[in-house]
């Protein structure tokens, strides 16, 4: 008799009509004899039927061929191989002519082919999925890959992978582009790490960021030893030195936080952040261009920048950030409860930063939900208590934005419901 394990691995194929007749007989016979497998088969059958039924509405239920063909005459085949095409049309293909037919065109396409092989090879061997590309460089810059300590020289056009670290010396600067079309410039004597296309950790030195407004995701995060900067499409400069971080915003607005609080900083304003500060106050700066003049000394290499836009920017799809609104009311909200659907993975989740603001977007409370919470397969909700002195929670509407933190994992969690829990009246 076949083992249950083996049978269970074939249930789906059986339901999908994808088993050979001989297999089918064995499975069906086993199902007759084994009650446990039979029940599993029944559950799997009803859940499959449910899925088929729900998706049926969305199914493509007509033939699109006509619509597609109707516009073909307007299109021209890319012309650089048209010669080969014509030749082929005149000569019926056999295996021999198929091979021969490539010979005349061989010299012409040799360069193209070898270039694409080079590109493919580099893509395949260097990185599974690049998050960015080095698009400009002055002097020598060292780089190291995730989990490796060996440092190698960085070079223009090199792909950037998640967790890559870069270090400039007293005579070098670096520019990289990240998926989502953000740019990072590193000044001299700077060390930083790219966690993912949406997060950069500046360990020391000075870096300049240009996060495009039309980036697919509104938030981009820069982490320093003293705090973090969250960005909604803007240009700004971050300087890490002497136990504090100075953030200078050129254009747009960023949110700056330390371990205790957060604040919004507008264009032509600057804020100093250090651990433990209870209040962060931004001050206007007179000539913001002067303060960030160093960044204009390094510009993208045009070829690298084009390759970056074609390869990295065009290929990236990044999920949207999560924003919730909770209505206040008569009674004060004492806590916020987050619900999600547990994916049963016990490792690898990212944590989430939670920012709660009132209806005028004034900051109220911030907190962090640890990845452990999502790694626990038994959990699907988490309550964030609001301290009693936070009287502002009487406000009419609460804006809650939730931002992933990938330092401990990258598996994202979708929150499905967010409740405001009130003190009973």
């Amino acid at each position: 008799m076949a083992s249950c394990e083996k049978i269970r691995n074939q249930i789906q194929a059986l339901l999908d009509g994808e088993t050979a007749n001989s297999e089918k007989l064995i499975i069906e016979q086993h199902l007759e004899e084994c009650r446990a497998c039979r029940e599993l088969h029944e559950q799997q059958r009803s859940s499959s039927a449910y899925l088929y039924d729900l998706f049926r509405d969305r199914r493509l239920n007509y033939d699109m061929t006509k619509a597609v063909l109707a516009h073909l005459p307007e299109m021209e085949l890319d012309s650089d191989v048209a010669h080969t095409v014509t030749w082929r049309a005149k000569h019926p293909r056999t295996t021999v002519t198929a091979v021969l037919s490539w010979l005349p065109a061989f010299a012409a396409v040799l360069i193209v082919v070898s270039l694409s092989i080079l590109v493919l090879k580099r893509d395949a061997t260097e990185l599974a999925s690049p998050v960015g590309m080095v698009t400009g460089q002055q002097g020598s810059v060292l780089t190291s890959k995730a989990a490796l300590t060996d440092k190698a020289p960085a070079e223009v056009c090199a792909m950037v992978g998640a967790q890559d670290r870069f270090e400039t010396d007293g005579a070098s600067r670096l520019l990289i582009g990240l998926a989502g079309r953000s740019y990072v410039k590193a000044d001299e004597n700077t060390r930083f790490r790219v966690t993912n296309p949406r997060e950069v950790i500046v360990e020391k030195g000075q870096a300049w960021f240009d996060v495009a407004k039309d980036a697919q995701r509104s938030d981009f995060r820069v982490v320093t030893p003293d705090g973090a900067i969250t960005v909604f499409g803007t240009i700004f400069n971050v300087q890490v030195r002497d136990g504090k971080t100075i953030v200078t915003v050129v254009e747009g607005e960023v949110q700056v936080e330390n371990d205790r609080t957060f604040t919004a900083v507008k264009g032509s304003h600057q804020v100093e952040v250090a651990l433990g500060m209870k209040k962060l106050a931004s001050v206007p700066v007179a000539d913001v261009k002067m303060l960030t003049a160093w960044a204009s000394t390094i510009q993208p290499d045009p070829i690298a920048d084009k390759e970056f836009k074609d390869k990295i920017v065009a290929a990236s799809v990044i999920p949207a950030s999560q924003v919730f609104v909770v209505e206040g009311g008569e009674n004060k909200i004492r806590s916020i409860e987050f619900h999600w659907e547990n994916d049963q993975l016990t490792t690898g989740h990212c944590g989430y930063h939670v920012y709660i603001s009132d209806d005028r977007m004034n900051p109220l409370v911030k907190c962090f939900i640890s990845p452990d919470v999502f790694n626990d397969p038994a959990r699907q909700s988490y309550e964030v208590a609001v301290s009693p002195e936070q009287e502002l929670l009487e406000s009419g509407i609460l804006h809650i934005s939730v931002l992933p933190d990938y330092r401990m994992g990258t598996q994202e969690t979708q929150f499905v419901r967010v409740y405001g829990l009130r003190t009973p009246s």
Partner: protein
Amino acid sequence: MHRDKDADLVFRCLAGDTDAFGGLVQRYQAAVYATAYYYAGRYGAAEDITQESFWAAYRSLPHLKDPERFGGWVKEITTRTAANWLRRNLPRLRHETPLPHRRTISMEDARQGLTGSLTRQEQLEQVQRAVDALPERYRLPVMLRYMQELSYEEISRFTGEPQEEIRGILQRAGAQLRSLLAEQGLKKEDVRGIL
């Protein structure tokens, strides 16, 4: 099912026979559509992306290196077309459409939980969330199978993974979806109601 080989259709197309391209469209439209739906279905853009993808494929057909692997190649094109579509349109859509998971619920409701059975639209959203929670490489085969009911062979042709691999993926994905849906509190009645 595949009387003409993909490669033959590709060669005929390159020789100027647009009907041959029609054959390729017919063969792959379900898969391309499901892929487009997976990326941008919630914005109602699946049809547009499907058309755009086939047009892009037609234009760059002369660059196809291995005509027998048209399926995997058109999949890449579809993914790229969908990504471009999202990049062009998401900033606008974000402001126009409410976020799918945005919800306002009073405390009374919160304590009781959601009562009553879900509407079909809500059920679909729930299922889509369950699909999104699957490992990435499971998701497309799942959409191709459940939405378009493609055979394992057709799926393998399109994703480029061996048929045996597709079989394993759909087995594991099926089991995960069952338990995800069970946890999401999918009520027995919901299932029975439609069977």
